[in-house]
């Protein structure tokens, strides 16, 4: 009767039976951190609950919606599916780590095209766009269509425009 199948990764070894794991080292937004808790904890919850970097959002827990997208070694990854033991040793960049004094061109394009409505999915969308532009500096409509992040507000047309705007800005700044 239990109706909650396949919700999460297979159960980890019982923690009460195991010796405390060695702390895992991870770099987030250029700063080193250690995680001494459950090594199977997804990166998402380490970012949010431990580091209080709450810009990365929870949406589904199964990698379907993309609200939790972060950059791991510069590539987009669903942080809700990435256990800390696998994230350890890698460089993680979250939405909070993109800008210092000036905004990343993708962030600026998001403002200029007035993309956000409720705003909840937008951190993940921005990270996905940055990853795309890294691979496809001049993306076609089809390239943009490969972004599978969900937005219930229906901001997709403005996301498309913002990605094209950011692409142009990034091309221009290289010249």
């Amino acid at each position, binding site marked *: 009767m239990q109706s909650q199948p396949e919700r999460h990764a297979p159960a980890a070894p019982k923690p009460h039976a195991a010796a405390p794991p060695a702390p895992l080292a991870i770099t987030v937004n250029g700063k080193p951190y250690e995680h001494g808790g459950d090594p199977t904890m997804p990166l998402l919850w380490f970012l949010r609950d431990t580091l209080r970097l709450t810009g990365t959002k929870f949406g589904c827990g199964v990698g379907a919606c993309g609200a939790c997208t972060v950059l791991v070694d510069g590539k987009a990854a669903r942080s809700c599916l990435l256990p800390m033991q696998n994230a350890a040793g890698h460089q993680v960049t979250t939405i909070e780590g993109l800008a210092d004094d000036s905004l990343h061109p993708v962030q600026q394009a998001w403002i200029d095209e007035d993309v956000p409505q*409720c705003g909840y999915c937008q951190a993940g969308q921005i990270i996905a766009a940055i990853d795309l532009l890294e691979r496809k500096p001049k993306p076609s409509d089809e390239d943009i269509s490969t972004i599978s992040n969900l937005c219930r507000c229906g*901001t997709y047309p403005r996301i498309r425009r913002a990605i094209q705007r950011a692409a142009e800005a990034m091309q221009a700044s290289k010249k």
Partner: protein
Amino acid sequence: MSAAIDRSRRRFLAVALSASGALLVGVRFARGADEDLPAELLGDDLTEVGPFVRIERDNRVVIGARACEIGQGVMTSLPMLIAEELDVDWSQVRVIQLPYGYIETDKGPSNRYGDQGAGGSTNIPDGWKELREAGATARWLLVQAAAQEWNLPAEKLRTESGQVIAPDGRKLTYGALARSAAAIDPPAEPPPLKTPEQFHIIGKPTRVADARDIVTGRSRFGIDAYFAGALTAVMLRCPLLDGTLDTLDDSEARRVAGVRDVIRIQGPKPDEPFAAQLADGVAVLADNTWAAIKGRDALKVTWKQGPWAKESTSALAAKANELLDRNEDGVVVRREGDMDKARKTSRYRVQARYEMPFLAHATMEPPGALIELKQDSALLIASLQSPGGASEMISRMTGIARSAIDIRMTRAGGGFGRRLENDFVAEAVLIAKAVGKPVKLMWTRDDDLQHDFYRPFGVHALSATLDRHKHVTGWSHYCAATPRPYRENGRKRRIFDGCLEPDDFPAGLVANLDKTFFSVPSGMPRGWWRAPIHNFHAFSVQSFVDEIAIATKQDAVKLRLEMLGEPRLIPYSGHGGPNFDTGRLANVLSICADKIGWNAKRDDGHGLGIACHFTFGGYAAHAFEVSVARGEVIFHRAICVADIGRVVNPLGAEAQMMGGTIDAVSAALHLAITVKDGEVQQKNFPDYPLLKMAQAPQSVEVHLVDSTAEPSGAGEIGVPSAAPALANAIHAATTVRVRKLPIMPELKRML
């Protein structure tokens, strides 16, 4: 240190001077004269503010946004109304979200900010007058202060860009005047408002006020609130409608590292209203979300079926069709003329049935709440649509006075009607009471899809009669649905409210009309889903008009225009009334037809579809150009024309129409919540597939009618006509008429 307030005024403005010398102006509605504005609440760090406007001595202007921001743009559009009349530059303004403003007055509970809830597209119409008056009053005070300073009559002074300007060109900034302005009594009557020609903010495209916070991850949503010492709670709820926990073994769960407690939460009895929590279950409390989720996964439970063990979507559909076939004991919703006679004398008769599924809200941010309960006070931080409802509920459940319940509003990751209910707040209260600690309740996506207040399920049977001139002479709309009113707490509604709208098109426009409602019993909780009623009502009506046109070889646009007739106001008792202007609906339809090239010959295999609808004071028409290939619908063009009266923020209104269109297309193409054996079958986005970017129209061409009518809200009118326009376009492209939502499974079955 607040200024004296004339107690004789029926409705007055609250003015105060903060400790740091900032002028504060807000609107209050009841006679709360004894209650001074709590300037001390303000502090100097702007983390908490009372009223709407705060002017710092350095001329910075802070404007409070009073309503729940759920993506409808009110954190931008409502402060624009204030800034307009205050006469400052938008670039000077910093917007902050106001908390819930409950106050007690000698006339009972009130709110120092007015209505803060989000529902029914009412924020703009509600704020249109009173928020401009708040801005105008602040400006009036500043002008009076300058008049005193210069010893000049106030009438000789003008304002611009946050300055008062004397006839000789002398200027004083608002900041320099703030302290003296705060000592002036507000006017007896609200000062006159600008005429539209004077607007320099209203009507100008304005970007989301806090966009920078959003794109840098600094925005705080309800889920982003943390509290020292709070435990994180995740619940396992009975997946069976009104089912109960039978056996529980939590020994494994309690051994999960970080799990602190496991407690029972009783659900409501099957005959009790849904006044608080929604389901029977178990809460796992832990140090963090992951530990709570792991703890929940380790629970061993069995459930007992409730009274709905046999409920299934197929049984509901069979029951609805049976009720419609039998046609006995229906509730008359509206009846005019003689439909039977019209049938007998008609030249043409057309009929069709449409089936609309339950829908979940699936807000991108799942429900949740952070709550701290103390002996005599409470703090709630959550993404809400009804902070007043949350306040009432907490008070009822704890006995804490509403004035001692502090509710901090945040941006909400979508609302769509889900957060009009506060069941998640009730759960957090129960858990916090049980463990005696602050609690952050987290919902996961399966919780969300399985425990919602769903859009009602219904079958709509429409029939029309036409005379030999092909004029529609009779219209009947029979609806058999799971009634929206179900186990509500003290709400009086008619059984058909929320499913069948008495005055919707073409009521009042045909001589013979019969609208009848039949109740289909169901254990599914039902609620409001963006553009409630209308999101399925319009699908049936506007698909059916298309069917009539095709069956009688008429043009679908001309038929609609003919049915609408001469431009006139007809009474409309539903939300957004009291009138429905047929001319405005005809206008958006005509523009939409023109934009899509309705009359152009085409031989490219693409299909055009069109539809229009009035609700909530707004008028919209949609048109799509689509083709169907490899079992997918391909959008070539998508058009939305809307008349929402005077547009406060064109950029925001365009976003609502674009987003409403895509949201509607998403639901129409793919989404359904289904039940089997008393259990909701969908568990996460893979089986409740919101539209992805690749599947959505690449752009939505939005046209806003240049109107001087009173503004209506924009959050919902972009939804209703999209689904029927799409189904009509698919028919034009494929000759397949989809009468059952969602479209894609039906289309694949029928192609």
